[in-house]
């Protein structure tokens, strides 16, 4: 596994920058190593980190696989798919989606979504920060304990400004420096292009757990140039699950008690059953949707054929292809002009998705790269470029949505068109509307619609201090700058009199600077506590494994060891069992160490016997 390169000159470890795919369902770290990107995983463990957070009774969080393991037994305190709430207000979310959640959500005073669990209110940014920390912990463990400080983090290409800001804030809360926000399909194309060494025009179709993106690119001499992108930040595997959950509900029938529908246990069991059936249907022609909740007298088994499933999800696949058509039109290309089609995201394992994409482009999509890993691998490659490792690779990306200002009458005046290359700057002159006007309200919006009210509101700011003059005389220069992360800064200046003022916009659907600061302080204060909790949980798990082995082999110990060693071992086992319930890290650590020492004589005996068995019956020459 990886090691840390040392800079001989100053003896400081080289700064480690990793790529992180922060997904709706799963997240994954990767790093550039020996000339290629590689996934960071602990040997013998799965690579993917489930994007799931479980809040324990004592208020501490566990994240990842162990959190997902709790989702069925304790759904109310186990949060999944939080990415769908990033940079969103409660009114942006469909009621039907809320009705399927096993956990409680509410909104902050400013209308932001927050999750309520065990009396704690957690924003999507804070929950994502917990996931990012877990991902970094895995990366760190995979590299023998190296500390991760910087990362390239991927987001759906169709994420708007508020969603990108929210992702950046999450990283800040996790104490990670974000070197770059990269679009997922762009990252995927990078991994694909480097792996397959192919050039030409490429379409990346990325259907993940909660979001859909399509990007059309050209790859030529190491330049990865995005021509257009389109998507739907609310279309993914979760929506396919929802279709099957509706089948389950219909099967239970009209008579179902609304209280049952609201029961987190019901919601979670239905969700997991739907997900399981969906996965089965990718490889078998039919599967059973089952739901068994004895406490509600619910026992359902419903057979679903591939044909029926295909018909149910056809509208979702059509929605994705509508996005593909828009992207193709913006790139001014016909499907026959696409040289390669790359599938990304776990949901592209669904056979209907594959066949429809193939039919649309008239060619077989590429599936050589693991659709769950390709985004993280691309992010790692981009990290290498940013660290100065390569000038041979260049990503040129675009912004997915137009950006503009609301003008008199409520129209959205677009300063930056969709699919403009980033970074991008536009200056535009505005003026006053009535005589003596001393201030102008600016309303920054993002979206394709003509009226500002139909676009996403990114923020409002007021430029005051304009000297009174006749209408139309003031000269206010407004500058929009979209940086390479796709994040917007707006500044405004009154130029005619030399009086200037400039304002930077924070999205109205994001956290304010003060909120981030407060959360950061709280999380830093918690960092030590969190770390100790984490270590304690790991040690208890380790004790569990050690106990199983040593108890199973107690008869061997009693047969082969001296009385004192056996007594030490028995005492250590008893102490370790007690320590499993302890909340003090020191006690748990001490018990583990004592048990470790006490099992050494036993381990020696076991090793000897293994060797003896292996050698038994063999001549010396065979050994």
């Amino acid at each position, binding site marked *: 596994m990886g090691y840390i390169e040392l800079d001989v000159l100053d003896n400081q470890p080289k700064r480690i920058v990793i790529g992180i795919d922060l997904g709706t369902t799963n997240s994954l770290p990767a790093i550039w190593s020996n000339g290629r990107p590689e996934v960071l995983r602990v040997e013998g463990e799965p690579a993917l980190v489930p994007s799931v957070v479980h809040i324990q009774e004592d208020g501490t969080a566990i994240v990842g696989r162990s959190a997902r393991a709790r989702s069925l037994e304790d759904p109310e305190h186990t949060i999944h798919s939080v990415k769908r709430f990033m940079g969103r207000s409660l009114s942006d979310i469909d009621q039907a989606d809320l009705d399927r959640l096993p956990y409680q959500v509410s909104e902050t005073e400013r209308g932001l979504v927050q999750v309520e669990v065990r009396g704690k209110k957690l924003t999507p940014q804070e929950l994502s920060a917990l996931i990012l920390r877990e991902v970094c912990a895995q990366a760190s463990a995979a590299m023998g304990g190296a500390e991760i400080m910087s990362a390239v983090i991927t987001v759906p290409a169709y994420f708007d400004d508020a969603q990108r800001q929210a992702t950046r804030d999450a990283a800040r809360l996790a104490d990670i420096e974000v*070197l*770059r926000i990269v679009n997922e399909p762009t990252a995927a194309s990078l991994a694909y292009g480097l792996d397959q060494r192919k050039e030409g025009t490429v379409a990346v179709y990325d259907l993940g757990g909660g979001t859909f993106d399509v990007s059309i690119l050209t790859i030529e*001499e190491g*330049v990865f140039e995005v021509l257009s992108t389109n998507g*739907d930040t609310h279309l993914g595997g979760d929506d396919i699950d929802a279709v099957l959950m509706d089948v389950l509900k219909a099967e239970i029938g009209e008579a179902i008690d609304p209280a049952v529908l609201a029961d987190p246990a019901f919601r979670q069991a239905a969700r997991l059953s739907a997900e399981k059936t969906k996965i089965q249907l990718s490889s078998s022609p039919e599967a059973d949707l089952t739901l068994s909740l004895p406490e509600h007298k619910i026992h359902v088994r419903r057979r679903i054929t591939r044909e029926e499933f295909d018909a149910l999800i056809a509208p979702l696949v059509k929605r994705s292809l*509508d996005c593909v*058509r*828009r992207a193709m*039109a913006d790139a001014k290309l016909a499907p026959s002009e696409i040289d390669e089609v790359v599938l990304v995201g776990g949901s592209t394992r669904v056979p209907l998705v594959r066949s429809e994409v193939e039919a649309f482009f008239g060619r077989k999509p590429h599936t050589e790269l693991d659709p769950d890993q390709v985004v993280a691998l691309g992010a790692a490659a*981009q990290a290498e*470029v*940013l*660290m*100065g490792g390569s*000038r041979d690779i*260049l*990503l*040129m990306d675009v912004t997915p949505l137009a950006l503009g*200002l*609301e*003008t*008199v*009458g*409520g129209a959205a*005046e677009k300063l930056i068109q969709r699919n*403009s*290359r*980033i*970074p*991008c*700057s*536009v*200056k*535009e*002159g*505005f*003026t*006053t*509307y*009535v005589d*003596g*006007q*001393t*201030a*102008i*309200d600016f*309303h920054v919006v993002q*979206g*394709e*619609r003509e009226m500002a009210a139909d676009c996403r509101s990114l923020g409002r700011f*007021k430029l005051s201090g304009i000297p009174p003059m006749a*209408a*139309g005389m003031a*000269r*206010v220069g*407004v500058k929009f*700058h*979209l*940086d*390479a992360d796709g994040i917007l800064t707006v500044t405004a200046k009154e130029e005619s009199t030399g009086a200037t003022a400039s304002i930077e916009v924070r999205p109205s659907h994001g956290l304010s600077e003060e909120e981030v600061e407060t959360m950061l302080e709280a999380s830093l204060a918690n960092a030590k506590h969190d770390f100790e909790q984490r270590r304690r949980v790991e040690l208890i798990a380790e004790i569990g494994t050690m106990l199983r082995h040593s108890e199973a082999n107690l008869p061997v110990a009693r047969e082969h060891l001296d009385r004192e060693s056996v007594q030490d071992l028995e005492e250590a086992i008893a102490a370790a069992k007690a320590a499993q319930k302890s909340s003090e890290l020191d006690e748990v650590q001490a018990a583990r160490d004592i048990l470790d020492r006490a099992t050494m004589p036993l381990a020696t005996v076991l090793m000897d016997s293994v060797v003896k068995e292996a050698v038994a019956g063999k001549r010396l020459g065979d050994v």
Partner: protein
Amino acid sequence: MISQPGRQPGSQRNSQEGAPQGLCPSCSAPLQTPLACGSCGVLIDVSHDEPSPFAILGLDVTFDVDAKDARKRLRRIAHKVHPDFYATAGEQQLDLAEQNNALLNRAYEILVDDVRRADWIVRNFGGPGEKDLGCMHQEFLMEVMEWNETLDENEPGSDEFQALEAELQAERKHLIESIRGYLTPLPDPKTPEGALALKDVRKDLNALRYIDRALTRVSGLPAPL
């Protein structure tokens, strides 16, 4: 009294014309773009005097631009100014790279799009803005009303739509050719003929805006979300 901002009449997005490229302020090598030196690699701050899109790509101001050549130039200059290559160079250099890459991107987008390029030339030669009165062809308005009827009365995919799409595409081509005629060679805005030519280009551009919107409707593409 506070209200929404109004558009400032005659506001211009760019005001500079094509300028000579000059020498690198750092190593004195001749520059191919005012944004960075191809020889020593230094980024050059041009915020006090923004070069024209043509100058940025090292081209003379003309209506016709070779798209392939422009793309090559874009890539070559992007390798000098893209922020990816300045991620660890400190905030000041990174900001400068952001700024120069933004100028480069915008220049390229104007130069490879017939409509935006023509619009840039009309604005920067002192011609009328898109909202100036009298910049619409009278006969075109009649055609527009007929097209609108076809659009309202038929469905995407129908024969009528297909016929209309062909008609719109032909009209588009015709208008671009008309603009090319007015702008080749570039008119002198100080002469009455030149000023008239710029006004005619503006009329054609306004017609094109309508045609492009109608073409989106005809294509049957699903409306934006």
